[in-house]
């Protein structure tokens, strides 16, 4: 279980003003859960993820993974970034195996595990390719495989499909559901797409900006419905899906309007 307890973050902006980026956010990511944080830009969702990853210390509150407080980055939390951060001087397999190299694993062992993970994301034929030879969607798949290599307790995904075209994006969502089902990892996933959030999450938190806080929480089941019947169109076309999408759109819209009126 990853537990975020009353996490607050204050930044100082470039002009010296103090920005309240995260306001007493509490959140649990239980075993096997797929938690999605949804919100417009500036709502603090990336701040929250950076704090979970240990890139950013909290102003107050705490984050603990399986009872151990998070004090910095570590291999027990795999991160998938929006921009791919693959190393261009390494092959795809070496990129995937990077975390194992840091952990001191032997080369044969590393590459064996890398090939296994590349099979999981459907890129077994590209092990020897260079990152710049792959498309954006393929590179994000490598990013997922790389984050899984060290067998982390949780995957933190920061708008990983945000830069992809919408067709690739749908394929990647389905692939991620497969990966999640096969590995049983907890996932914390950030997006600003309502449809993506509803389709992927077992738990959904809606966030609003200035200060960043959680304004609504939902438990969802669409992802399991998809996993059972593998029909994305039926899941997204269901009346319940559409109704919830409209509700959430209203919430996001209202909080935006209220905040800007208060400014």
């Amino acid at each position, binding site marked *: 279980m990853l537990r975020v307890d009353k996490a607050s973050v204050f930044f100082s902006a470039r002009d010296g003003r103090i920005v309240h980026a995260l306001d007493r956010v509490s959140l649990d990511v239980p075993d096997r859960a797929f938690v999605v944080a949804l919100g417009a830009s500036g709502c603090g969702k990336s701040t929250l993820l950076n704090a979970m*990853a240990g890139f950013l210390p909290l102003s107050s509150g705490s984050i603990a993974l399986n009872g151990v407080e998070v004090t910095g*980055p570590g291999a027990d939390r795999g991160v998938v970034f929006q921009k791919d*951060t693959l190393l*261009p001087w390494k092959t795809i397999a070496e990129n995937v195996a*990077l975390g194992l*190299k*840091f952990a001191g694993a032997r080369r044969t062992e590393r590459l064996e595990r890398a090939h296994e993970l590349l099979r999981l994301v459907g890129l077994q034929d590209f092990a020897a390719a*260079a990152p710049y030879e792959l498309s954006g969607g393929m590179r994000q798949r490598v990013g997922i495989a790389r984050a899984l290599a*060290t067998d982390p307790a949780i995957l933190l995904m920061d708008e990983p499909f945000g830069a992809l075209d919408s067709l690739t994006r749908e394929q990647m969502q389905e692939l991620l559901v497969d990966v999640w089902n096969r590995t049983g990892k907890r996932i914390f996933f950030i997006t600003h797409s309502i449809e993506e959030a509803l389709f992927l999450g077992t738990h959904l938190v809606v966030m609003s900006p200035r200060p960043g806080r959680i304004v609504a929480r939902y438990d969802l089941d669409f992802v399991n419905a998809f996993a059972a019947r593998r029909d994305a169109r039926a899941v997204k076309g269901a009346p319940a899906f559409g109704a919830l999408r409209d509700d959430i759109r209203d919430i996001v819209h209202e909080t935006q309007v209220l905040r800007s009126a208060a400014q």
Partner: protein
Amino acid sequence: MTNVVATPAPAEHAGQSAPRLVKMRRFGVGEASTLPISLMSGAVILAIWWIVADLRLVPHLFLPTPGEAATAAVSVFQDGYANATLFEHVGASLLRIFTAAAIAIVLGIPIGLLMGLNKWAKGVFDTPIEFYWPLPPLAYLPLMIIWLGIGETSKITLLALAMFAPIVLSAQAGVRSVSQERVNAALSLGATGFQLLGEIVLPSALPEILTGIRISLGVGWGTLVAAELIAATRGIGYLIMSASQFLATDVVFVGIGIIAACAFAFTFAMRLLEAWLVPWKGQN
């Protein structure tokens, strides 16, 4: 209702002449090859030289014909000049620049990386480097000779100093070019400080470092020849200097040709090294 529009058969070009290939209009010279124009330009310059020299438009003492320069090249190659063979002259110059380059690289890369990573290192080294780097090296050559004597030590120290600064500055810029996301990614994969340095920072900075080495070879070569003109008993600069004292203009031309050939070889070797070490450069 479906609206599928019939597409013409792809074989429409078959039997006709090849299709007209088009490209986006672009500004500037871009990638267009200038090789034929460049070769022509070189030929014209050579022809002008030949005509001016052959017609004695300037005194023959000042300007030999290209043919005479070539003859001198053969004679210098066979018999040597100024108490040494051509290989001894070139070898002396190359030994100096490569020794100095090795010193500058071995010291410059770690110090530059450190300056990019650590506030104290940057503060401490910035002051002396920013002070001496803009100075023309020949301005402190007399000081080197007074302190270290007329031998190899003073020349190699001078060169190492001249070549050190571009390498340090490029290594530092290389560290600055490492993206925070890349560092964060490595940290979240469990990298220690040393692993971060070896696996992420150094390779990321490598393209900039190689550019720095290329610049420093250019600076060093220029400085070396100038230093040899002033204080040496062997080397390409010395060869030119002694030839000029006897007004052997044809040998001066030979020396200049050798200097240009070496500089060209350095640039070419560095390009090969870059293609081998950083094939990903410009790909992202």
